């Protein structure tokens, strides 16, 4: 079912099971457990969703429905370097869609995906509150503003080294 092989550790699973145990009897336990699972694994692989469904006694379809509804949850693993391109109104009119296009072409993945070597993942977001710097992209928390398409490759190269 999943696109990537699941390689979770025993330690991660124990953490998840602890979290489930802690929330089990709460009404609406699903969301907090899914948040924690996303924190533990960086994404929500199908194997993890199945464990959550089984232990919380909710249908897998419900877990999957929640996971695909909120953009905060991801079904794909995140890269070592997480790129986020702002597609909010100000950035968009300043051409952030072109920035995203260059990134997708350069890394050969689509928005929401992760490169096969696990180095980069691309996501989009809506307004980071830096409209004065539009168009904006963020890599690992560092903001790059007033971008042009031509600058993207140079920035990526910095991260490719490590």
């Amino acid at each position, binding site marked *: *079912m*999943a696109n990537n092989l699941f390689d979770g550790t025993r330690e991660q699973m124990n953490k998840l099971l602890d979290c489930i145990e802690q929330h089990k009897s709460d009404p609406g336990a699903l969301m907090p457990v899914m948040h924690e699972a996303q924190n533990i694994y960086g994404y929500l692989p*199908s194997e993890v*969703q*199945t464990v959550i*469904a*089984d232990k919380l006694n*909710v*249908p*897998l*379809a*419900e*877990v*999957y*429905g929640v996971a*695909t*509804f909120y953009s905060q949850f991801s079904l794909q693993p995140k890269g070592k370097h997480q790129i986020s391109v702002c597609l909010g109104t100000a950035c968009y009119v300043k051409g952030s869609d072109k920035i995203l296009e260059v990134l997708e072409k350069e890394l050969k993945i689509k928005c929401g995906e992760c490169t096969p070597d696990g180095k980069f993942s691309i996501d989009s977001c809506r307004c980071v509150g830096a409209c004065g710097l539009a168009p904006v992209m963020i890599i690992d928390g560092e903001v790059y503003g007033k971008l042009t398409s031509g600058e993207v490759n140079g920035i990526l190269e910095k991260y490719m080294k490590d």
Partner: protein
Amino acid sequence: MVNLKINGIPVSVPEGSTILQAAKVANVRIPTLCYLKDVQCVGSCRLCLVEATGARGLVTACTYPVSEGMEVRTNTPAIRKSRKTTVELILSTHKKKCLSCVRSMNCELQKLALEYNAEEDRFGTDHDLKPIDDLSPSVVRDNSKCVMCTRCVAACTQQTIGAIGPQNRGYAKTIGSPYGVSLAHTPCVNCGQCVVACPVGALYEKSNVADVWGAIVDPTKKVVFFTAPSVRATLGEAFGLPVGTNVEGKMVAAIKQLGDIKCFNMDITADLTIMEEATELMQRLSSGGTLPMFTSCCPGWVKFAEHYYPEFLPNISTCKSPQEMFSAVLKTYYCEKNGIDPKDLFVVSVIPCTAKKFEVTRDELGHYTDAAITTRELAKMIKEAGIDFVNIPDGEFDTPFEEASGAGAIFGATGGVMEAALRTAAAKLGGSGAPIEFKEVRGTAGVKEAEYKVGSTVLKVAVASGLNNARKVLEDIRSGKKNYAFVEIMACPGGCINGGGQPYVHDEIRNSIDLKAVRAQALYDYDREKKLRTSHENPAVDTLYKEYFEKPSSHKAHELLHTTYTKREKY
């Protein structure tokens, strides 16, 4: 009581009622799409919008509670315009292949479009066709026709299966199984409650009509039909007859007009089931076997147990379902007796059920049934053949499988199998003057319990219909809270009369009558008028044992009339 006015009509309704419920009392019709009584009430489709004093803007009648002195308007120009636009927006993403749709003329969206003068293409047709999932032997999903009412999801959730759910968001939203896998690869039990909940043609049974027509025109094939107990009580609905009309005679006559067909009465193998099952129960009781024993007639329940409660598989009676017993009898005894090569006999069962379509694909049952068609599919064939169903003179079942007991007929309603078994047990152990009617196990309550003294034994029994209720009973047994000797379980709420293969009933009717009770009444009336009311007195069953199976639970009976179960995965 709360007093209010709906379109100027004063009504008085209990506190906590919704505007929709109050409108029913005032005989004012408010259109609905996502609302379905006993299944879903979420107010998401926005078709039931009305004006109410004290409310800001239009409110959803299905969820908005009434209050004292409230004045409700259901039919102003603003409301009509809103409803029209809502329908038009739904149509903009709907695959409008209405002429060749299974629900044409019986579609709730089509009806609303007509009533509100919706323009089919006001907002264009902006959608990509989505793939049709037809891998399941029971249920087909065509998401290009889905209107996102989520009635199917609510029905599946109520059954405690949750094989489907909404996924993604906005335009990308669809209803389906996780990761878009086919329903065939999920723990779906094929009950088909999603199908009867669907207002449009997004869900329907996997049709076997073409196979049946093929066999009818094939000169090398002899075609035999048999009809399940509840079909007589529901088939008429597909031809505009009132809910609860028993159309057995017309049904048989119509089937025989489809071609050179012999039509048999499946109630006979319901009687046969009782003989085998009662014997099994007595053996379990006397030899310390696994108890409680569960009934095994319902293929939805059987698959449910295989996925979700495999620990209880030894508790399920090893008896095949009446459908599979009948097919086995036809392909062996009947063929031998009439010198027919079993491969030339084409066995068609007419059932109220989509799960039975899955059942015929089970290897352990021997593939004796060639095609299982639902009540809806039979209705379609009758219409296609141009038969005037309403006016056709009654026909009679063919020998040697024509006469059955009333006990066999009530198999179609929840509690019926239990009552049939109790009748035989009471007569066998209690002698003459034993009771015939066991009213405690009748009715549409989800769980029914009773205690009967049969001979010198006290039998504690339970009856559950709807898998949510089955789960309650199973959990109580598991925890030791409850203890029974014999438990009947039917997957569909109300039993087969409310099966996933029964005629579509518009939400308007479904919301205003107790469909399950009215349909079941037709079977109980039929039973009451029968002279033969106990399974063990059925002469056809007697002949079967004399000429073929020797006695219940014999070696041959075990070979042909019993089966095994397998644990299945939950994910």
